[in-house]
């Protein structure tokens, strides 16, 4: 590999990129747009959800509990009703998203240590579910039940139970922002390089390039390098926005986050290169990219829990770089794990990069036939 020729390719790519306004807009526009769209949709700090209240006990204690719940600002009292059935009807009509039910035997339950109230939730909206879970943490001011604390062997009964309608399985929303780094990378990075070689072929540049001493490796690596920088730039934008707008935690080391992102970027770029050596036109390259993109979104665990998928789908998902990246990034950002502990997925990505890059360089011929 000749360093000067490699650098010439890198400089050329960057110069072309700097004149390609649509691609430039895509580099910054896609992460910002996606993050804001996805981000606000999953915002956990909900305020002022319309709530309906049924206080069948109507004692000083029950009124205090309801007032405490309202004081969190998560809900605002929109309706009152007499029976839980009325609340359910209101939820079904969409008049309210949350119903609070205090049963007539509130005081008795409080003494027995049984659940003292019920929060009914419109579970078709997962963000409301999260809000309800928050509400259920409302402490009871009386310490009395602690005298009757259950034995350590059985889990303590929640004092306020949450009943979720329509969607019993809760999707953990905070998973989305770290995962979004992966989704955005998969969307943009594969496309950049998938088009890179095909475009030169379409414009006739390739016939000139292959008649020069430039080697396949120099060309391939030279095409990938500028986009690694761009990918890391995108990662920074998403991280900065994720942290500042949505308070997404980075519990592990920032270096690990970037290393994981770097691996995914490389994986996607080399996959794009391979597509590029196969596709006959830019349009075909885009079609092939979507062929990768859709399964990545659906199977990687970004949208649906990995564990819940059938075995065949899981096997397929193991081939996709995004699956491994999601495990890495969620591990590092949310659980504070180090890459070392997650070496399985690191290795999987490294192997993926080596195979794809090798195949792309091997498939690329400095011949027209």
């Amino acid at each position, binding site marked *: 590999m*000749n360093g*000067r*020729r490699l*650098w*010439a*390719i890198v*400089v*050329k790519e960057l*110069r*072309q990129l700097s*004149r*390609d306004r649509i691609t430039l807009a895509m580099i910054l526009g896609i992460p910002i747009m996606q993050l804001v769209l996805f981000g606000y949709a999953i915002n956990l700090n909900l305020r002022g959800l319309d709530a309906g209240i049924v206080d069948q006990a109507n004692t000083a204690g029950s009124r205090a509990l309801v007032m405490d719940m309202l004081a969190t600002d998560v809900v605002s009292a929109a309706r009152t009703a007499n029976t839980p059935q009325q609340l359910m009807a209101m939820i079904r009509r969409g008049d309210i998203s949350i119903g609070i039910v205090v049963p007539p035997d509130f005081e008795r339950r409080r003494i027995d240590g049984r659940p003292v109230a019920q929060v009914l939730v419109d579970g078709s909206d997962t963000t409301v579910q999260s809000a309800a879970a928050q509400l259920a943490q409302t402490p009871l001011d009386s310490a009395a039940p602690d005298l009757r604390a259950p034995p350590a062997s059985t889990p303590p009964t929640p004092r306020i139970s949450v009943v979720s309608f329509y969607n019993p399985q809760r999707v953990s929303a905070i998973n989305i922002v770290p995962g979004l780094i992966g989704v955005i990378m998969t969307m943009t990075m594969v496309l950049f390089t998938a088009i890179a070689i095909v475009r030169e072929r379409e*414009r*006739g*540049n*390739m*016939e*000139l*390039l*292959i*008649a*020069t*001493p*430039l080697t396949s490796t120099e060309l391939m690596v030279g095409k990938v390098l500028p986009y690694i920088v761009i990918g890391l730039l995108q990662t920074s934008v998403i991280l900065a926005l994720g942290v500042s707008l949505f308070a997404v935690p980075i519990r592990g080391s920032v270096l690990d986050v970037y290393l994981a992102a770097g691996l995914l970027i490389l994986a996607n770029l080399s996959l794009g290169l391979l597509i590029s050596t196969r596709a006959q036109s830019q349009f075909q390259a885009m079609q092939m990219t979507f062929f990768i993109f859709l399964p990545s979104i659906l199977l990687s665990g970004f949208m649906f829990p990995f564990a819940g998928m059938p075995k065949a789908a899981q096997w397929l998902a193991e081939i996709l770089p995004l699956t491994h990246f999601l495990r890495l990034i969620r591990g590092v950002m949310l659980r504070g794990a180090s890459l070392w502990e997650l070496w399985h997925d690191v290795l999987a990505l490294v192997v993926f990069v080596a195979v794809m890059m090798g195949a792309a360089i091997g498939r690329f011929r*400095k*011949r*027209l*036939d």
Partner: protein
Amino acid sequence: MIPADGEVAIRASGLTRRFGDLVAVDRVDLQVPARHVYGFLGPNGSGKSTTIRMLCGLLTPSAGEIEVLGLRIPAEAEALRRHIGYMTQKFSLFEDLSVRENLDFLAAIQGVPRARTRARIDQLIEQYHFGDLQKQLAGTMSGGQKQRLALACAVIHEPELLFLDEPTSAVDPESRRDFWEKLFELADAGTTLLVSTHLMDEAERCHRLAILDHGVLVADGTPQALTGRLQGRTFIVESADPRRAQRLIVDVPGVLSVAQVGNSLRVLTAAGAAAAADMCRHIDATLAGAGQPVHTHATPANLEDVFVAVTGPAAEQAERAA
């Protein structure tokens, strides 16, 4: 006219390339002398581009041997790439890079020594009149400017051998003349040039020339030698009604083709048909007999006559007659 020292830049024998059932190049034997401008003349689809691509190692021949600058192709194609320049038929530089950026890029890729790059690029910008256009994006330039830039990029590493595939097909006549000036300057400086074209006036400028038709090399030699072979076979026929005269002359025995040129007709006869003077009298007499008096006189052959004589239906007719 191979030079006295007999130096040959390109040697090919039995060169063949098939695309499925189509034989694009059919057993072509070729010798290109060094430091010459060698032309490939042929209609579109005659196999000119395919031959050039095989010679510079971009296409693998289906059969045949190639030796370029002493290197066996395609086996040693990679080594050859340092010594050749290739100007593709379609503009192949980067339209979204400026003139200087394209030159910079090619200089690095072609391995022009770093210390000399700047001086070499300045020299090319001066030679090829890009002084005011250095910062202009290649895509926004005119056809003639683009071709000039493509040539400058193709010669940036001072190659010994330059392949040009229909370099001037999209260029106005004046730019074409300038362009050919540059080609002769390069040949004078010791470069061997192989230029394909379908334009007769360009072919005429070449030192030596090969005519390709349907993948077959049907004639080669200097333009003078090629036209010389048609001595006594080309005539001008003046007529008051050239359209009608044309229909009558086609049927005269020995006539290969008749083409209208302005108000007269240009007639090509088969080899060994009749002596020139006899043919003139013969045509005049035949048409007078048909009530269409004409005046016929012999004229020197040009490359178009050569082209007609060796390609297409006229050539088949001549073969059948032989």
